[in-house]
C-alpha cells in the first residue's frame, strides 16, 4: 500500500495523533444524541441550579457581583475538567483493557502518539463543553463581556493538564476500583476547592495557599478574568503554571503508559 508522506517531528508521527483524534470524533458523532446530555444538559442543569438556587440566597460576592455571574466561569471550567479527566482515565483505561490500543500499536504508531492524541481529544471535549455551557450562560444573562471568549483558552489549558493527570490513572489502574480514585482523589476535591463556587480568599488561612497550588485553580482564575473582562498579570502566571505542570506530568504519564503497554 502506498501511504501519504508522513510528518515526524521529534519522533512523533503527526498522522497517529490525527488518526486517534479522528477516531474519537467519529465515535462521538455516532452517539451525539446521548453526548448532548454530557456536554450541554447536565452542566446546564448544574449552572441553573446553582445560579438560580444558591444565587438567590447569596446576596453578592467580591464587591457587588451577582452570585450567578460569579459562579458561571467556575462551573464551566469544572465541567471542562470532568470531561478531560473522564476521557483520559476511564476512556483510555477501557481502550487499553479492551485490546484496542494493542491493535492500534500494531500500526506504525507509538504510545507517545496515542497519549498525545488522547490529550488532544480531552482538550477538544473541554472546549466543546465550554462553548455549549457558555452559550447557556449567555442566554441566562450571566455572561455579558465579549472577552468571555477567552475562557476557551482556560479550557484548553485545563484539557491538556487534567488530561495528562487522567492518563496517569489509566496507566496505573489494573481494575476499575483503583481507577475510581481519579474521582475521589482528583476530580471531586478540584471541583469544590478550585475557587469555582466561592472565592478562595474565604477559605481558612491554612487552606488558602493549598487551594492555589491545585491544578484547576489557575484555570478557574483565568476563566473568571476573561468572563469579567478584567485581566491582570496573575492570569499570565496562572497560564504559565498550568503549562509547566502539563510539561512535567505528561512525560510521566507517557512513561507509565509505555510501561503498561510495551512490556
Amino acid at each position, binding site marked *: *500500500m502506498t501511504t501519504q508522506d508522513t510528518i515526524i517531528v521529534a519522533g512523533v508521527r503527526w498522522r497517529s495523533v490525527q488518526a486517534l483524534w479522528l477516531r474519537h470524533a*467519529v465515535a462521538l458523532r*455516532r452517539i451525539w444524541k446521548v453526548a448532548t446530555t454530557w456536554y450541554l444538559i447536565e452542566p446546564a442543569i448544574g449552572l441553573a441550579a446553582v445560579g438560580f438556587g444558591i444565587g438567590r440566597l447569596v446576596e453578592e460576592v467580591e464587591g457587588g457581583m451577582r452570585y450567578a455571574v460569579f459562579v458561571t466561569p467556575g462551573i464551566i471550567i469544572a465541567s471542562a475538567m470532568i470531561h478531560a479527566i473522564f476521557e483520559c482515565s476511564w476512556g483510555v483505561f477501557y481502550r487499553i483493557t*479492551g*485490546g*484496542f490500543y494493542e*491493535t492500534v500499536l*500494531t500500526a506504525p504508531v507509538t504510545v507517545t502518539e496515542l497519549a498525545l492524541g488522547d490529550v488532544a481529544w480531552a482538550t477538544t471535549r473541554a472546549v466543546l463543553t465550554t462553548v455549549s455551557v457558555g452559550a447557556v450562560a449567555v442566554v441566562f444573562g450571566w455572561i455579558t463581556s465579549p472577552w468571555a471568549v477567552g475562557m476557551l483558552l482556560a479550557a484548553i489549558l485545563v484539557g491538556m493538564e487534567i488530561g495528562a493527570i487522567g492518563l496517569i490513572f489509566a496507566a496505573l489502574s489494573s481494575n476499575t476500583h483503583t481507577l475510581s480514585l481519579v474521582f475521589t482523589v482528583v476530580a471531586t476535591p478540584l471541583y469544590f476547592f478550585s475557587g469555582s463556587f466561592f472565592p478562595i480568599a474565604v477559605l481558612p488561612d491554612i487552606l488558602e495557599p493549598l487551594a492555589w497550588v491545585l491544578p484547576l485553580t489557575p484555570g478557574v482564575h483565568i476563566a473568571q478574568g476573561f468572563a469579567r473582562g478584567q485581566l491582570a498579570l496573575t492570569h499570565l502566571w496562572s497560564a504559565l503554571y498550568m503549562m509547566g505542570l502539563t510539561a512535567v506530568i505528561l512525560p510521566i504519564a507517557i512513561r507509565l503508559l509505555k510501561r503498561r503497554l*510495551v512490556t
Partner: protein
Amino acid sequence: MIRGRDIVKHFGPTTAVDGVTFDVMKGETYGLLGPNGAGKTTLMRLLSALSPLTAGELVVAGLNVTRQGRAVRERLGVVTQQDGLDTDLTVRQNLEIYGYFSGLSRRESSQRAVEVLAFFGLSDRANDDIDHLSGGMKRRLAIARAFLMAPDVIILDEPTTGLDPQGRNLVWEKLAALKASGVTILMSTHYMEEAAALCDRIAIMHLGRILDEGTPEELIERHASTEVAQLRMVTEARAEVRAALAAAGYAWREAGATIHVPSRNGQRPQLPPMDGVRVTYRPGNLEDVFLAVAGRGLGEE
C-alpha cells in the same frame, strides 16, 4: 522474510522465550504449535515490535525489529488473540480508521475497506455495530484489518481459538485464500488440525523453546508412528485396559475417554481382545508428534 536468532525474552524472573532461532521464507505459512505458556504469544509480540527483546536478533522484511520498530509495523498485519476491535465504531469504520492510522488518506482508506470487507465476506455487515457480530465474524474482521494495508507478513495469534466449528471453517477458508495470495503468514495455534491444514512448516514450541521444526509430514514421520490404535471404552473397563497394555509392554497416552496406542517397530499394535473396548486404527498425526516431542522436552527438565 523473518529471521530470528537466539531470541530471549524475560519478564522479571520468568523466561518466556528461551533462545529461539528460526527462519520464515517469503510466501510461506509458518506455524508455532504449542500449549498455552509455550511462549508463542510473546514471540509474536516481539515480532510486531510491541515488546523489546531481552537478547538476540529479529529481522522482518530486512528491518531490525529493535531499531526499526515503526518501519517493521508498516510491513506487518497483526491479529492479536483478543481481536482488539473498536466497539465504539461500526465494522466499516474499524477498517477506515485503521487505514488512516496506517497512513492512507481518508478516501483511499474507505475504498480499501470496501474491497477488504468484500474479500472477507462481511460487506453486508459493513454498517453493523461490532457487538452484533458473531465470534467468527469478529475474527474475520480482525484478519481483514490486518490485511488492509496489504502487508508483507501477517501474524495471527491463535486465529480460531474460541470459535464454533462453522466459524472456524470460514476463518480457515479465508486464511487459505490469504495464503494463496502469496502473503507470508506466521501463526500460532494449539489445534493440530489447523496447523496440519494451513502450515507449510511447523515449529513445536514448549517452555519457550523450539523443540523441533519441519513440514507436517516430516514431523509425523520423525516422531509419530505410522499407525495408532484408538481404544474407546466404558469408564469401568479402563483399569483393565491399562493393565493389559502394561502387560503387553505398550506405551500409551490417554486423551479424554480415549486411549491412544502408537505402533511399535512399525507394527500395528496387537492387542488382546477385551470386553467393552472398541478399537479403531488411524494414521499418526501432529498430536502424536507434539506429545512425543514435548514429552521428551519435559523429560529433560
